[in-house]
């Protein structure tokens, strides 16, 4: 067993991908199952805030685009559940853990979508943050996860651009429309920064995950990158980033930013965000209401098999 671990560490160090049938430490397998399934759950629950606006999109084209985006999120959830299943866990267990509240998903999806501009802000900020998080994962040490990430990243680019496009339209529109965009930025900015996770010194899993190459850039490193590339985009839109401490530091070549309310983050993770209960109830209801479809499909498949 010891020699297997040595071989594993050498493979990781050499940048060789770990594949499902390779020997791997139990802790690596467990950590990956947790990480990939949380990621999958986030894609699935992430459909809900946006799904809220499908029926109220301002034009038929925007509606078709939003439908396509939400459909992509479902697909991303499926790629990721499959990647997790290569580690020997059953899909039904993962779904059960989500529905029971045992499993976590990204805290950002526990915030409400109050206006159409929120759909723009989610695409621009939330998907923008997700892309920064996911691009390094295309190089992570676990083959099936890395390959799922490649596919997802390609599709996310559409998501971010459609979000920016929504906000661009609103910001070039009436005062009321621009105010709506500003209000969305005000509400989504800080939760988006929290998406990268706690500060590095408080991040409990980081060191081991970085050694295993299933996390490649630190939380704070990614957060800084996000701020650096997003603030100029906000400037272009003519929107104000809601941070009084925000300022460009000529020497470091980075933006300085104000303190993040980590207490809020902890509260949302613990289930006390504005929509936690609603999101889980919606997922549970959907699962229950879909039960007859799954049963009918199984019955049909059995009948077909019996007929030969």
């Amino acid at each position: 067993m010891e020699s297997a671990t040595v071989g594993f560490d050498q493979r990781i160090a050499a940048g060789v991908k770990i594949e499902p049938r390779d020997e791997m430490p139990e802790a690596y397998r467990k950590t990956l199952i947790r990480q990939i399934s949380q990621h999958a759950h986030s894609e699935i629950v992430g459909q809900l805030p946006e799904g809220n606006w499908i029926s109220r999109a301002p034009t038929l084209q925007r509606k078709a685009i939003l439908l396509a985006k939400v459909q992509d999120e479902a697909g991303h959830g499926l790629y990721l559940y499959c990647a997790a299943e290569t580690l020997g866990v059953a899909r039904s267990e993962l779904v059960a853990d989500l529905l029971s509240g045992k499993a976590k998903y990204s805290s950002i999806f526990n915030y409400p979508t109050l206006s159409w501009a929120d759909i723009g802000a989610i695409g621009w900020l939330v998907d923008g943050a997700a892309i920064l998080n996911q691009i390094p994962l295309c190089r992570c040490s676990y083959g099936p996860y890395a390959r799922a990430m490649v596919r997802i990243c390609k599709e996310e680019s559409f998501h971010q651009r459609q979000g920016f496009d929504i906000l661009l339209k609103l910001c070039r529109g009436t005062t009321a429309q621009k105010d709506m965009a500003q209000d969305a930025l005000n509400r989504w900015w800080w939760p988006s920064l929290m998406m990268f996770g706690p500060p590095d010194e408080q991040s409990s899993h980081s060191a081991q995950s970085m050694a295993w190459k299933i996390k490649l850039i630190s939380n704070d490193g990614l957060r800084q990158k996000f701020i650096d590339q997003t603030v100029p985009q906000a400037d272009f839109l003519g929107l104000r980033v809601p941070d009084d401490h925000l300022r460009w530091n000529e020497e470091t070549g980075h933006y300085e930013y104000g303190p993040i309310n980590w207490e809020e983050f902890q509260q949302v993770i613990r289930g006390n965000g504005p929509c936690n209960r609603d999101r889980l109830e919606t997922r549970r209801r959907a699962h229950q209401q879909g039960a007859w479809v799954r049963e009918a499909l199984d019955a049909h498949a059995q009948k077909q098999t019996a007929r030969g």
Partner: protein
Amino acid sequence: MLFEVFIRSQHGVAHKHVGSLHAPDAALALDNARDVYTRRNEGTSIWVVPSSAITAGSPDDKQPLFEPAQSKIYRHPGFFPVPPEVKNL
């Protein structure tokens, strides 16, 4: 029995279909696949799948299967014009 052969050409990439071969069982199919398809070190991993286990879409269904995606060009990021001043999007 006919088997379809999939090879992972290098670490990190997915298995890719390379062809098929005959063998009496899966174990021999693996051995044969090694000899037929990886003589020049083309692979790091081999999968063999009985051809009969593959359900393929019918070429006649091509239109109903794939045509609906053609009109949904907004699924491609290039559909949304990005002003030249905006970077990293």
